[in-house]
């Protein structure tokens, strides 16, 4: 493995861990301030952001599967059921598409 590969791995590792340390310090600082309520809102905010980033620019199949997953999540409030249902709808739509339906 060349020097460039070694450098890339250790620079990435240092950057990733530094960002996590920054988060640890930020969390403790915010928690000790009058803005501690922000920490309660962060998880929902990030999860919605991750969903939005996953769906942005995707095709109709993904959006229909996402709609099905949302319905299952709303009805069941269960992660595994939602994953299985969403994946099944996605695979079914892809299969139908490949068969020309």
């Amino acid at each position, binding site marked *: 493995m060349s020097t460039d590969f070694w450098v*890339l791995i250790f620079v990435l590792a240092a*950057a990733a861990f530094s960002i*996590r340390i920054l988060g640890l310090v930020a969390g403790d600082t915010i928690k000790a301030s009058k803005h501690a309520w922000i920490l309660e809102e962060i998880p929902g905010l990030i999860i919605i952001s991750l969903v939005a980033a996953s769906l942005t620019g995707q095709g109709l199949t993904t959006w229909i599967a*996402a709609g099905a997953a949302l319905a299952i999540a709303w009805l069941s409030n269960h992660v595994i059921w939602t994953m299985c249902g969403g994946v099944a709808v996605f695979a079914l739509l892809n299969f139908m598409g490949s068969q020309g339906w």
Partner: protein
Amino acid sequence: MITILPLAAGAAIYGFAFGLLAAQVGFPWWGVALMSSLVHAGSSQIVAVEQFAASPAVIGAALASAALNLRYIGIVASLSDILDGLPLRFKLLAIHITGDENWALTMSERAKNPTIGAPFLIGSGIVMISVWTLSTSFGAIVGSNLPNLEEFGLGFAFTAAFIAWQEGYGVGIPDCFLG
């Protein structure tokens, strides 16, 4: 804790694909394993290796990767309550093995049951980093002779899981759609 296993399976598929990509760029399997265990940030590893393949400038790849990882400031900050009281070495371990999946699962489970805390986060994190490291290494070893698993919907598993978790935070369907 068993709820992390479907997510680990999804991560394994991405990990395998990343291993293939990294091997094509020239990383040996043990280099891929080293990167996965030290960096432990899937999407940013993929972006960094893609950037590195296009132009072997370490700084460009590192910056692209770091930009993707900025969300971990918020993710780790939100763990403040969970990590409170742990010795520093356990805090450092916990933040290293925290990824999108085990973090979201921990926060979602904690919203339902406040006794869920650091043991759940660390246990699920160990599962995820182990699966990620093994699957990326395996991908680098095996090569590119498998069918496209994306078409079977396995890549959609993460999106579906995040949709389920946002329900746990009460960000559901607006009332106007429910009649």
